[in-house]
C-alpha cells in the first residue's frame, strides 16, 4: 500500500480519564472530544461548534479547564482527564451538581457539563470566589437558556456547600 494509507494508521494510547486508565485505539486526527464521545462512550461531554467558539466541550486536563475539541487526543497520554462523568461520588452528586439541579443552573442541560467542569476547576483553586470571578471564569461557556444568573447562583451555592463539607 502507498504512504498515504501508511499514514492512516490508528494509534493506541493509554488515557487516564476520571482516574481510570484505559487503552484506546483511534485515528490520530481525533480530538479528545471525539475520543471521549466516540471511542469511550463518554457522551456527557458535549459539542456545539468544534472550533473553540462555545465552551460546551470543556473538560479538565491536569485540573485545568480546556476545550476538548481543540486538544489532540494523542497528546493526552499520561495526563489526567476529568469529565462530567467523574464528578459525582458514586451515586452522590458533587455539591456543584446538586446546586445546579436545585437552583435552575441547568435548563436544557447542554452547556451544563462544560460549565460544571469549569466551575469545579475554579472552586478547587478558589473556594470562595466573588460574583465577578465567577462571571469571568465561565465567560468562555455560552449558555442560550438561562441568561447565566441562575448559573452564578448555583456556583455560589455549590461553593458554599463545598466549604461546609470541608469543615
Amino acid at each position, binding site marked *: 500500500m502507498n504512504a498515504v494509507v501508511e499514514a492512516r494508521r490508528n494509534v493506541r494510547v493509554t488515557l487516564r480519564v476520571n482516574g481510570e486508565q484505559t487503552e484506546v485505539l483511534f*485515528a490520530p*486526527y481525533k480530538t479528545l472530544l471525539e475520543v471521549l*464521545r466516540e471511542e469511550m*462512550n463518554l*457522551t*456527557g*461531554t*458535549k*459539542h*456545539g*461548534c*468544534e*472550533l473553540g*467558539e*462555545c465552551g*460546551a466541550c470543556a473538560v479538565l486536563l491536569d485540573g485545568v479547564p480546556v476545550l476538548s475539541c481543540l486538544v489532540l487526543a494523542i497528546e493526552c497520554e499520561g495526563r489526567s482527564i476529568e*469529565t*462530567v*462523568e467523574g*464528578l*459525582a461520588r458514586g451515586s452522590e*452528586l458533587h455539591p456543584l*451538581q*446538586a446546586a*445546579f*439541579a*436545585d*437552583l*435552575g*443552573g*441547568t*435548563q*436544557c*442541560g*447542554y*452547556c*451544563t*457539563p462544560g460549565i*460544571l467542569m469549569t466551575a469545579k476547576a475554579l472552586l478547587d483553586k478558589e473556594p470562595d470566589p466573588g460574583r465577578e470571578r465567577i*462571571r*469571568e471564569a*465561565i*465567560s*468562555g*461557556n*455560552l*449558555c*442560550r*437558556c*438561562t*441568561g*447565566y*444568573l*441562575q*448559573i*452564578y447562583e448555583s456556583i455560589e451555592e455549590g461553593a458554599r456547600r463545598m466549604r461546609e463539607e470541608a469543615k
Partner: protein
Amino acid sequence: MSTRKRFDVVGKPRRRVDGRSKVTGLTKFADDVVLPRMLHAKMLRSPHPHARIDAIDVSRAEQHPGVHLVLTGRDFPVSFGIMPVSQDEFPLAPERVRYVGDPVAAVIAKDEQTASEALDLIEVKYTPLQTIATPEEALAHPEARIHEYGEHGNIHRIQAYEFGDVEEALAKSDHVFEDLFFFQGNTHLPIEQHASVAAVDGEGKLTLWSSTQVPHYIHRALARALQVNAAHIRVIACPNGGGFGGKCDLHNHEIVVSRAAMRLGRPVKICLTREEVFYMHRGRHPVLMKFRTGVMNDGKITGMHLQTLLDGGGYGSYGAASTFYTGVLQPVSYELPRFKFDACRTFTNKPPCGPKRGHGTPQPRFGQEVQLDKIAEKLRIDPAELRLNMVAKPNSLTANWLRIGSIGLAECIRRVVDISGWKDKHRKLPEGRGLGLACGAYMSGAGLPIYWNKMPHSGVQLLLDRSGQVTVFCGATEIGQGSDDVLAAIVAEVLGIDAFDVRCVTGDTGLTPIDLGSYSSRVTVMMGNAAIQAAERLREVLAEAAAEHLEVSPERIVLAQGRAFLAEDPGRGISFRETVELAEAKHGTLGSVGSYSPPRAPARYKGGGVGPSPAYSYTACVVEVAVDAATGWITVPRVWIAHDIGRAINPVSVRGQVEGSVYMGLGEALMEEQVFRRLPPKLSGALVHKIPSLLEYKSLTSLDMPEVETVLIEDPDPNCPFGAKEVGQGPLLPVMPAVANAVWDAVGVRIDEVPITPDKVLRALERKAKGENPRVGPESFPAVPYPEPICVAPPWEGGDGNASKEKRKAPARKLEGMAAS
C-alpha cells in the same frame, strides 16, 4: 380540579425532576444515541443561492471505500413542508436549489470523515438563476419565480384585514404618528446542533430519534415524505439542547437518514455542523414595518394601521402563520378601538425563516412600544402612565375578536416602575444614562393546530400499579423549558405525592398520547390541563378506595404527602401505595387518560384562527443603559422585569425562563443578526450567510449579561392549570423596545431598528449635533400590492365576528394637514 387551597408541589421552588440527569451528563440528546452497526451521513449542499441542477454524478462517491449509499433528489419524489399549505421542500433538491446550503445529495458511510471525503467526489452541474436577495427585489422582480406557488411573483403570502374604519379614526384623532421600523433577522442558536438517528427494528418498522420540538408533526410529515404507513414509524424526540423554535420543522436530514436506514437496514446518524444549523435557520423574519397610529391628547389610541413586509427566505416553513403573527397580537395589550393590518411575505434566496421565540410578534411589538415612547414624549406624558391609562380590560374582546381572560399588565407596569426607581430616574439621569420602559404580551398556546382537525391538542395517560408507581405518558417535549417537570408536578399535586415519584415518558409517538409539541408556549396550559383531567380521574378512584377502607364518604378523603387521609383527622389514613393496592383490587388495572382542547375562539372570519389562545401572558420591562457620547458604545448595567405568569408551577424554572428571555432579548436588541453578503455582481453571483459561526454570530457571554431583577405577578387564570400561564416567550418581547427607549432617554437619539449597535448610535448622535433628525432607521417603505382588506366590524361596532359582506367603500383617503410625527 381539587378545591384544596394549599398546594404541596405547585408554587414551591424545587429541583426540577430531570435536573439530576442534566447535571450528570446522563440526559441523552440525539447525538448521544449510539446503536450497533450505526453508519454516518453527511449532506452535500448547494454553493449557489439560486440554480437549476443539470446533472449529478455520484459514481465516484459510491466507489469510495467505506461508502454504503449515496442518495440524491431522485430518491425522494415527494415534497414536504411543515404546514399543509406550504409543501414546497424536498429532502434533497431534485432540480432546483434556492439558497446556499440547500442540500442536493447525501453520503452514508462508515464514519463521518469518510462521508465528508466522499462528498467531494460528487459532481453537480448547475445553471445559476437570477438571485433575489431582499423583499424589495422580490417585489421588483416577479419573474424568475423562486416558487411556482404562492400569491404571485415572488410573494408567498399577502393579506389585509380591517377591524373598523381606521382612516376615519385617524381623521378624528388629535395626532397621527407615522413611523417606520426595521427588525433584522436573527437565529435561535441552540448550543446543540441538530442530530438525528434512524433505525429499522426487528419488525421492519422505522424509529427516528431526533432533536425536535414537535414529534407529532414530524411523525405525520415524515410518513407523508417517505410514503410509509404512519403506524410503522415511531418518532422519539430526544430532550433538546435548546430549541427556541429552531427545531419545529421537519428537516431535510431527518427524512434522509430515515430513508437511508430503511434502504440499508442499519442505523444511520447525522449531526449537523454549526454552519449547517445556520442554514436550517427557520428563525426570526427580517420585517420592515410602517405604523400609522391615531392618538388623542390624553394619549389614548384611536386606531392603528400597521403594514409589514417579511423576508421569508427560500421556503414556506411556518411563514403563512408568521405573516399573521406580525400583526394579530397587537391589540391584546392596550385598548385599540380600530385596527388595520396589511402583511406580505416574500421569497428570497436565503435560508428559510420561521418561528423563533415570540414567532412574528417581537417585530411589531418593537415598533409599537417604541412608537408609544415617542407618543409619550410628544404629549409630555410619562410612558408608564400612558400605558397604564389604556391597558386592555380583563375578560374582554379585542378589535380583531381575540378573547382576553386575565390580564396582569397594569400590575406588571406598576411593579417595574416601583423596583426600578423609574420615577426618580426616567428623564432625570445625567446625560449618557437612561431608562426605557416597554411591555409585551404573548399567547399561552395557539388556539389551532397547524393542520385542521377536531381532536385534542394534548393527551395525557396515567398508569398506576400496586407498587405505588405512577407513570405519566405525554407527547410533550422537553427542550429545556421544564415540560417534564411541569407534567410531574401537576400529577403529583393532584395525587398528593412527590414530583420525584412520578415517572415521565414523553415525546415518543410510539408510546405517548399526542401532544402537538413544544411551540407557541402551549405546553404548560394544554398538557397541564390534560394532566389534571387524567390525574383527577384517578384521584377519584383512589379516594373512593381509601374511603371504603376507612369507612367514610369519599369527599372526606384528602390525598397529600404520599397518603390518603381524612380531611378533619389527618392521623386517620393509609399510605398512597396501600391506597393504590385497594383501588387495583377493586377496579382492576389502574389507568386514566385526560385531554385538552382550547376553547372555541369567537372570531368567525377567515384567518381568525391565528391569534386566539386560552390565555395571554403579559410582561413589563425597564432597561437601564449607559451610552458613551464619543463612541456610541452601549452598556446595559441593569434590567427590571415583571411577568404576569398566572401562577408559577415551579418558580425556579419560571425565573429561569424570564431571565433567559431577557438574555436573548438583549442579544436581539444589541448584536444578534442573521445577515447575508453579496459579492460584486460583475464578478460573482454569490449570496452567502455573512457569519455562520458561534464566534461571529454574536450572542451575549456571561460578561455581557447584566443583573436582572425579576418579579412574578401571580393572578391565576381560570383557563389554565392551577392558573399557570406561559413564560417561555412573552418576557422576551419588551426587552428590545425597552433598550431602544432607554437609548433615547440616555442621549436623545432614536434607533428605530435592531440590532442597536454603537455605530448606529454614533451616526444618530452626529445627526443630532448637526441639528438633523436624530434618528437611524428605515427611510422608506416600498409599494406593496396589498389587497383590498377583509373587513370585520369590532365587537363594539355591532360585529358578530364574521367578515362583512360588503366591500370597503373607497380606497384609503389621503389625509391632509394631519399632525404627523
